[in-house]
């Protein structure tokens, strides 16, 4: 077991914990980690759910405990923080680029939703709901491919 050192180490560990529904993004990329506080040899992590009913939340909490424990932090405590509510504004630019490269249109202000495949800006919404609570279904009128868009909240 490695010797745990600082909150900075804990942040680096959490940057390796990915969202199981969006396997290109870490929970740090998503802006879900609100606070990390060292507590003796242990650590306390405050996490904000992206969507109230996100089914991935329990898996994420388990993975946070596993990753920090493996890095030598003990005990690891995870608390859920609801206020202020999570917003897509907390997603880093790097995260938006990763989403696009993965084929999901990142959240953006305005009405134009660019196709993540051909970058065409002529798209239509097929459904406000998609395969997970965080995504909506779109179709590109240029390349005719359907794609998912991360919901703006």
């Amino acid at each position: 077991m490695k010797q745990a050192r600082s909150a900075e180490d804990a942040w680096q560990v959490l940057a390796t914990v990915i969202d199981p529904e969006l396997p290109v993004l870490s929970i740090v990329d998503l802006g879900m980690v609100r606070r990390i506080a060292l507590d003796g040899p242990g650590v306390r992590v405050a996490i904000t759910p992206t969507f109230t009913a996100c089914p991935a939340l329990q898996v994420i909490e388990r993975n946070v405990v596993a990753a920090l424990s493996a890095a030598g932090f003990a005990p690891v405590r995870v608390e859920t923080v609801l206020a202020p509510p999570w917003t897509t504004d907390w997603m880093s630019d790097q995260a938006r680029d990763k989403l696009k490269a993965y084929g999901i249109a990142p959240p953006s202000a305005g009405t134009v939703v660019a196709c993540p495949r051909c970058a065409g800006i002529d798209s239509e919404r097929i459904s406000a709901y998609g395969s997970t609570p965080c995504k909506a279904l779109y179709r590109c009128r240029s390349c005719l491919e359907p794609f998912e868009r991360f919901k703006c909240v």
Partner: protein
Amino acid sequence: MSDAIFAEYLLRLGDSHLVLGHRLSEWCGRGPMLEEDIALTNIALDCIGHASVLLRLAGQVDGTQRSEDDLAYLREAVQFRNLLLVEQPNGDFACTMARQFLFSAWAGGLYDLLQQSTDSTLAAAAAKFAKEISYHLRHSREWMLRLGDGTDESHRRLQEAIDDLWPYTGELFQLWPGDADLIERRLIPHPERLQAPWTARITEVFSAAAITLPSPGAHMFSGGPLGRHSEKLGYLLAEMQIVARSFPGAAW
């Protein structure tokens, strides 16, 4: 420190989201088209997420430390506090959308006001819920317009659905025992404050969808938050609770 009156209010809200979420989940695999099947189950999931937060809080506030699962799976129908509107059967697609629209228009207004609650957990949850419910409202509103202003058949079915559900909307604005105390403590808004914005919101849509507003003096059913439910809730709970009741304490 336990607060039985506030816990009762949280149960009323939590149970309403839970029962509505379960009703919507009955559409899973039966939606009129794939996108709608996905939408209905997503809204169901949101409702159950809201229920989970509210019931967990209720179990803390009433001092029993019951979990959201204890409260969802181990209570009888007479112990449920949900509004009668949400236990009404799905009926056809128009009926499900009408029920969703009437409920979401009310819940959206409620959670806007609950963000000022003196209970910080409820206020925080309300801010989160309001964002999610705005999606439900937009979705059900679009269907109200499409069905109401669609074919003769879709219009007839939507009007019937509204007429059937209308007598269950009186409960949304009723003052229940204990509420006055919670209003005094600024934990919750007075339910009357929700009525005018709700009426304005649904009237605008009814008018665009050519739906006739049922008579305001019509008889209203009442009693869900006091545990007086129709037999329909019993069947719903039997299905929802059977696994938890058959295998007590099971974990997977």
